[in-house]
């Protein structure tokens, strides 16, 4: 921007002059325009306030309704219809943790692998690679209940025939969030400049050595962001689990392959929320608080991570 040495004062003078003229012109705007601008800006701000207020109200309402039910019982006790004041989420929490462990085992290798293929190996001019790409973008927007149908017909019954076990739920959720991981990982890989790859290849590294030692380490923050966001989506997802056998009243600690049924946090919340009694409503709200604390912390961390390590090469 600097015009350099001798002309700098002159540039500064010209800029100051232009700025003064602009400001004078702006002040001479017709009254109508000034009012119109102010009204428009006011309306926009109102929309922002309404959007944020709605979401704030959601959090405050959960706190107001659920704070009475927050106690160690909430995480230590199984659900109960007879003693709602002692009921809790223990099997649901354990179920959710096991579901998420399975999701992670699946989405990290497969998601990163797919992204690596599409970014590092695929020839973009080939039609089949375009098909894969569009297909992934579409899968990211397929309704979650459709994944439930897939899980029911393909994983629980049908070809895989696993039955109503926790692993089937885990696999269904993994397929649901896989596109998110692939899309985020691809963006992270694309942000690594080509000069890094070329430098590595020029030094004699093979393509895989280049990817493993140079490209992947540089892309890790972006990949991690995608994985965290995907996991937080999987934790909060309810609808597909209803179809693949997450039964709502499990009073024992679920196991990955147990055929007696399993439960998950959002499914248990849903069940409590359907019951009109005050105690169950409070339990539902308390469960929501618990989930919001975990999910908002995870999402905030993911977005912080992305913004912090968004490298400008």
């Amino acid at each position, binding site marked *: 921007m600097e015009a350099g040495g001798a002309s700098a004062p002159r540039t500064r003078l010209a800029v100051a002059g232009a700025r003064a003229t602009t400001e004078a012109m702006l002040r001479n*705007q017709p009254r109508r325009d000034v009012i119109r601008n102010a009204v428009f*800006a006011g*309306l*926009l*701000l*109102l*929309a*922002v306030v309404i*959007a944020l207020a*709605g*979401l704030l109200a*959601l959090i405050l*309402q*959960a706190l107001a309704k659920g704070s009475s039910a927050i106690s160690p019982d909430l995480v230590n006790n199984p659900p109960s219809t007879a003693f709602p004041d002692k009921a809790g989420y223990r099997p649901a929490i354990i179920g959710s943790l096991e579901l998420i462990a399975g999701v992670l085992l699946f989405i990290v*290798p497969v998601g990163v*692998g797919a992204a690596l*293929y599409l970014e*590092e*190996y695929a020839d973009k001019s080939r039609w089949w690679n375009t098909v*894969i790409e*569009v*297909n992934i973008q*579409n899968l990211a*927007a*397929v*309704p979650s*209940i*459709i*994944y439930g*149908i*897939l899980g*029911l*017909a393909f994983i629980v*019954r049908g070809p895989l025939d696993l039955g*109503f076990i926790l692993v089937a739920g885990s696999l269904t959720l993994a*397929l649901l969030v*896989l596109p998110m991981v*692939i899309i985020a990982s691809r963006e992270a890989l694309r942000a690594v400049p080509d000069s890094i790859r070329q430098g590595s290849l020029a030094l004699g590294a*093979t*393509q*895989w050595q280049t990817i493993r030692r140079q490209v992947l380490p540089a892309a890790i923050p972006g990949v991690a962001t995608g994985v965290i966001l995907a996991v*937080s989506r999987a*934790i*909060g997802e309810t*609808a597909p689990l*209803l*179809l693949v*056998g997450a039964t709502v009243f499990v009073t024992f600690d679920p196991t990955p392959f147990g055929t007696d049924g399993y439960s998950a946090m959002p499914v248990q*919340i*849903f069940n409590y*929320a*359907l019951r009109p009694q005050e105690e169950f*409503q409070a339990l539902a*709200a308390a469960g*929501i608080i618990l*989930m919001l604390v975990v*999910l908002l912390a995870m*999402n*905030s961390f993911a*977005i912080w991570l992305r913004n912090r390590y968004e490298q400008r090469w």
Partner: protein
Amino acid sequence: MSSQTTTATEPAGEPPRRLQAQSKRYGERAIKWALAFCALLSVLTTTAIILSLIGPTIGFFEIVPGSEFFFSFDWTPQFEPPSFGVLGVVAGTVNVVIWSMLVAIPLGLATAVYLSEYASPRLRRTIKPILEVLTGIPTVAIGFFAVSFILPEIIVPLWPGEFLGGAEGKPFMALAASLGIALMVVPIIATLSDDAMRAVPRGLHDGAYALGATKVKVATRVIFPAALSGIVASVVLAISRAVGETMIVLLAAGNTPNATLNPVESVQVMTSYIATTATGDIATGSIDYKSVFAVGAVLFVMTLIMNVVSIRLVRKYREVYE
């Protein structure tokens, strides 16, 4: 290029050196194929979705005539004789989606215009991450909020008396679900449209100001039209999300098949029919089981069309400006 052998610049006496890899590097190839398989898994997922929908849907149409399914508004699978007019639940979906979009589109777009044109960089850096974090609120929480707060504390007190039958004393209604869905999609519309508006080249923006345009004119007549394909894509994606949303509707809209656009009625939508019918104990091969897949196929095709439109629109604006 790696297959060329260089001979011209070799010093005399030494044999020409080959630039080809010395071994075949089977490991490298195996890795490539393993990664390609991971990518292919996504195509297999789509194929599996389509296959699992098609089979039972064909079985369904062997029992229920297509004319009844596609052209009747009577959705009463539990009656004797049952009637499977899918328009009955499609109407419920349309009801919920229309009212949610009437609220969400203006709010989302206004938020996007504010973020990209009005907010100071600092304010933007605060609001945008908040919106992004909020897209992660589980829908079961939004559904609970819709039925236990939006309905009794907002809709009932503000509803104009007996208008459309009145809102008083109703435990469920489409409008509560609509407002919950609006809450869910406003951050989606706002962040995606903001991205689209910020992808408009700075020059268009500065040029309009230099010609003396006011801030309103720059925002509404220059930036907004220039970003239109991205904005429409965000709205289409939001509609697709609203159509496929299950938990909010299941909790707040009741579950009564009702072919009406009246927002204060209780309705059943496609997703809530699937979620309440296809629970663990449903018998494989029964007509109810098959009807779930038929409704699922309709839902899948509807959202597929919207997703493809949205993806194409985003590609279009990327081509123009990036």
